Structure formats: C-alpha cells, structure tokens
C-alpha cells in the first residue's frame, strides 16, 4: 500500500515535471535574472551615469525641471535614484477634462546636471521580470499559464519530497563522475538543500496571483464588486481637488525630511505631487519598498503642497495584509542588500538547476533502454530537442538579447522591440539547430556558442561604450562591473559544460552505461 502510494507520487513527479519542466526552467531562470533587474537595466542603458547618492540634490533638480517643463500638469511623479538604479526618473500626466486620463510622459534626468539623459530605448531587466510571469503573451493568458506552471511546480515539489526515499540519510551525498547516479544526486542535493527557498518562491507566487487563482473568497465577501476588495487593499490617497487658483509649490525637501522622521529614518522611494500649480496642491511621499521584508502596498505621508502642512500618515497595515505582503516581499526580495541579493540569485540558480537536472534524468533513464538501437523513438528525440533548446538555447537567447542591446544603433526605430525580437529569434534558431543536429553534438555546439557569446560580452561592452571593466571598477560602479563579470563567469561555466559534454561523447565507456542502468533501477 505504502509502496503503491510512493510509486503513484513518483509517477506524478515524473510526468508533471516533464510536461512543465521546459517552461518552468525558463520561468526560473528569467525570474532569477529579475533579482538584478535594476542592475541589468543600468548595463543596458549605459548613458545613465552613476553618481554618489544625494536625495536633497535629486529632489531639487527634479522639482526645478518639472516646474519648467510641466507647470500645469495634473500630476508629477519623482522616483529617486538608488544604489542599484542611478537614474532620477520623473514622470508627469497632462491635465485633461475629468473622466479622461491624460498621457504620461517620462524622462530620466541626470541627478547632478538636471538635464534629461538621452538613454537608448531598451526594456532592460524589466523584460526578464515581465517574461517570467507574462511569458510574452497577451493579458491574461501568460499570467494564467505561469500560475498553472507554479501550481504544477508545487505539486512536483511535494511529490518529489514523498518520492525521495532517504532525505536525511542522503542529505550530504553527492557522487560526481558516476553518470546517471550523479545527475540524480545533484537533483536531490539542490532540491533538498534549497527546499525552503523552492517552497517559499512557489507558494508565494500563488499568493501573489491569489485574486486570479482563487477569486471565491473575494466574491463571497465582496460580491461581484471586486473593485471594493482592491479599494480596501490599496487605500486611495484622497487628495483635495484642484481649486483653479494658481499657487506656489513649496520646496519638496522639508516634506521629504518630515516623512523620513515619521518612518524612523526609513527611505523614500517616490514622491507624487497632485495639481502642482494649484493652491490646493498636495504632496504624497511614498516609502521605498527596500525598507522592509513585508511589502507594504502604500506607506504614505501626505502634505499640503502650498502650506507644507502634514495632512495624513497612512496607518499600520492589517494582519492579513501583512501576511500577504510578507509573501510578496519574500518573493520579490526588494529588501535584500547586495549580499542577500546574491544569495537570492544563487538560490534561484539552484532552482533552475534542479529543474534542468530533472529533465536530463528523465531522458537519460529512458535513453539507456535504447542504447543499443541506432535510432531513438520519436518521443525521446522530441524530449531531447526540447531539452537542448529550452536550456542551452535559452542561454543563447539571453546572450543575444544583450548583444542586440549593444549592436543595434541607438537611433533605431522601435529599438527595444528589436532587442526582444533578437531574444526570440535566437531561441527559435536554437530550436531549429537542435532538430537538425544529433543528440550530444547539439548540446556541445549550443553550449559552446553560448559560452562564446557570454565571454565576449565584457569585450563588446568595452568596444561599444566608454564603460569597460577598468572604468567601472575604478569608479566603483558595481552594477556595471558586476554585470560584465557575471557574464564572464557564465561564459566560463558554459564552456566547462560544453567541454564535459564533449569529453563524454568522445569516450562513453560501455561499463558505465551498464552500471548506470542497474543503479537507476535501484533508485526507482
């Protein structure tokens, strides 16, 4: 009975893992990259220079610029530069008749000179972030598909734990250079050792899309009016309407300082000014999401813009909102400093590796049975092609995205869309290549191309921008330097993987295959 149950769970783990494995691999890898979303954007828009942070100067510069460019706008938004994202971003919304939404105009300013930066048009790290839950599909299909993938991931994790016979006995076990056995050991090691992260990230992704996945509780409490639910969750800042008399907006810095005092020294993320040219102007200061683990959906201090009077401080969030916010915050990791952010990144890579090794094991186990026959059955060949394209091919696609960023001319029309095109074209080509080449040869070639592309990225950066590694390291621009170095490391890793593959193709001893077979049966 017990064995029957375990076998059923193993079956579920195998097939759920296979069908969604390729998609989950892409979701995990791009999601892992999204932890460095701002740093990637910084690399992809090298025109935005990094300066030492000074919020007072940034606020003054932004206010001055907006006062000149958009004195009659309905709303201003100022996003302050951070260590990770050096640009001072200002946005304003044109004034229109009530009931219509004015267009938004966004500029990135240099926080020292106050001049708008002519940054190249690029989606930057936002592309990976969006892709990892929207999958480049029209709303809401991508979100649905990724949420279903998250559910399958959760099922695969639970069934994986049940299937794994000796979690504690094999806790510290990893036996390399033993073929299939090593793959299974590796799969178990990254799975078990990083399990808290896997469970957290998968469960929290379901919490984030909870209103989509499980609308029943919301409908039960709020009826069909789901807007009421969101209104309660994200309380609106009720600001006074414009009076129509012109007024003088006070400097923003004192309000910024008062807000920080309210938060015991917490940081400011964004400042919004409503009706800046009106006597009834109001200023909302929003807290930075990097301040706490629990994601707060609206910690705000509001001021009257012309008198400077403090109007309102948002209250403490309710308990359910804290619980939801902590899952949200843990998933996003906005609060993580550089060290913890790297640990998040490594955990994400471990998750990606777990999915990848799982896919390799599925195929390896079945290939053994056909080791003697010349041709592989169609379904195994299909899995092999998809394995190559979804893993090695995705790496090539990511590199192609970065290459396109540096090679496409800055003045190119719809430039950022072409970068994304380059990503998908490269991915498509890798799929084609995997179909044409036989097995391991396909792996070796794609891994080598990926290695070349990644290793060359620091060189490419040095040739196309003035911010090569020497300069960025000297200036302490760690986002820029870290990007180059990480690409270099990824290239070296891919080269090592290609070399390993190549060596195993050259000499695959019969004995090892036979041993792998018996071990496999024992591992079940």
């Amino acid at each position, binding site marked *: 009975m017990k064995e029957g149950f375990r076998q059923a769970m193993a079956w579920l783990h195998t097939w759920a893992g296979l069908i969604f494995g390729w998609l989950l691999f892409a979701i995990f890898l791009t999601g892992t990259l999204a932890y460095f979303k701002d740093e990637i954007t910084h690399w992809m828009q090298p025109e935005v220079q990094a300066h030492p942070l000074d919020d007072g100067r940034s606020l003054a510069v932004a206010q001055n610029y907006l006062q000149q460019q958009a004195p009659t706008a309905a709303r201003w938004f100022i996003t302050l530069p951070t260590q990770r994202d050096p640009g001072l971003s200002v946005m304003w919304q044109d004034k229109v008749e009530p009931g219509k939404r004015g267009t938004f105009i966004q500029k990135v300013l240099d926080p020292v000179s106050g001049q708008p930066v002519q940054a190249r048009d690029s989606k930057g790290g936002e592309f990976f972030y969006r892709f990892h839950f929207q999958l480049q599909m029209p709303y809401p299909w991508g979100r649905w598909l990724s949420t279903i993938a998250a559910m399958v991931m959760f099922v695969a994790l639970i069934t994986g734990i049940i299937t794994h016979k000796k979690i504690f006995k094999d806790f510290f076990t*990893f036996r*390399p250079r033993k073929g299939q056995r090593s793959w299974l050991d590796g799969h178990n090691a990254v799975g078990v050792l990083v399990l808290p992260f896997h469970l957290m990230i998968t469960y929290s992704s379901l919490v984030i899309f909870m209103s989509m996945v499980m609308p029943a509780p919301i409908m039960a409490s709020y009826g069909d009016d789901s807007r009421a639910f969101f209104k309660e969750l994200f309380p609106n800042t009720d600001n006074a309407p414009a009076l129509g008399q012109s007024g003088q907006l006070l400097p923003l810095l004192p309000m910024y300082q008062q807000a920080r005092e309210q938060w015991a020294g917490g940081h400011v993320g964004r400042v919004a000014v409503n009706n800046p040219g009106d006597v009834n102007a109001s200023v909302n200061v929003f807290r930075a999401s990097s301040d706490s683990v629990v994601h707060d959906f609206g910690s705000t201090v509001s001021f009257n813009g012309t008198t400077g009077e403090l109007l309102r401080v948002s209250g403490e969030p309710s308990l359910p909102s804290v619980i939801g916010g902590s899952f949200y915050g843990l998933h996003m990791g906005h609060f993580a400093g550089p060290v*913890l952010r790297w640990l998040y990144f490594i955990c994400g890579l*471990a998750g990606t590796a777990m999915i990848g090794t799982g896919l390799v094991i599925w195929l390896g186990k079945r290939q053994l049975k056909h080791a003697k026959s010349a041709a592989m059955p169609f379904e195994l060949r299909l899995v092999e092609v998809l394995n190559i394209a979804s893993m090695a091919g995705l790496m090539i696609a990511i590199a192609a995205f970065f290459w396109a960023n540096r090679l496409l001319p800055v003045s190119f029309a719809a430039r950022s869309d072409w970068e994304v095109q380059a990503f998908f074209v490269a991915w498509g080509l890798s799929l084609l290549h995997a179909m044409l080449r036989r097995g391991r040869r396909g792996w070796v070639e794609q891994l080598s191309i990926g290695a070349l592309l990644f290793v060359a990225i620091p060189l490419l950066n040095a040739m196309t921008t003035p911010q090569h590694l020497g300069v960025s390291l000297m200036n302490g621009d760690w986002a820029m330097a870290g990007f180059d170095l990480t690409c270099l490391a990824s290239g070296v890793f891919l080269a090592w993987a290609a070399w390993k593959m190549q060596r195993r193709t050259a000499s695959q001893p019969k004995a090892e295959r036979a041993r792998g077979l018996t071990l496999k049966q024992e591992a079940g």
Partner: protein
Amino acid sequence: MLLALLMCYAGFTALCLSTDRHHGELLHRKPTSKRRVGLRLAGWLLLTVSIWPAVRASGWSQGLVEWCAVLMLSALLLVLLLPYRPRLALSLAGLSLLASPVAAFALS
C-alpha cells in the same frame, strides 16, 4: 551574516561527520557511538544558536530571512566541496569554528 554563516557551516559539517558513511570517508574510521551523539548534538546546537547573531544584527524579519539563506547556502557549499575537496571542506569547518569568536567579538 558572517557569524551565522560560519556557525551554520561548522554545524552542518558536524552533522555530516555524525553519519557513519561520511565519517568513514573523511576521517577513515568509524565513529564511536559517543562521538556520534556528541557531533550530532554540537551540529544541531550550532545551527540553532546561529539564529541569534543573524537576528541580532538585522532584526527579526530580515534576520530570519538571512539566516535561512545562510543555512541553505552553507549546506550547499559543504555538499559541493565534499566530493572534490574533502580536506578543504573539513579545514574550512575548523577555520570557521576558530573565526567564530572573532566574528562574535566584532558583532558585540
């Protein structure tokens, strides 16, 4: 975060040594049952106590997150080192035990 990392790594190494198989591989003999229990106790103790420096340095919410991260990463590091550089893995554990008081001193 450093002290928590040192303690977690040493703790996991102790737990690893408390198993017959790994003790045999690393030290080439079987542990006595007394030693096994001692190592297991020391391992669990180190892992549990390592919460304290993490929480002390960065508060409960951030500290617990950091502790979890360090816990996972130290185990991963140990398991990846064991088959390739077993002696290094052991000496790192010894080193982290030695460095822990220094790190604790710096923290307080």
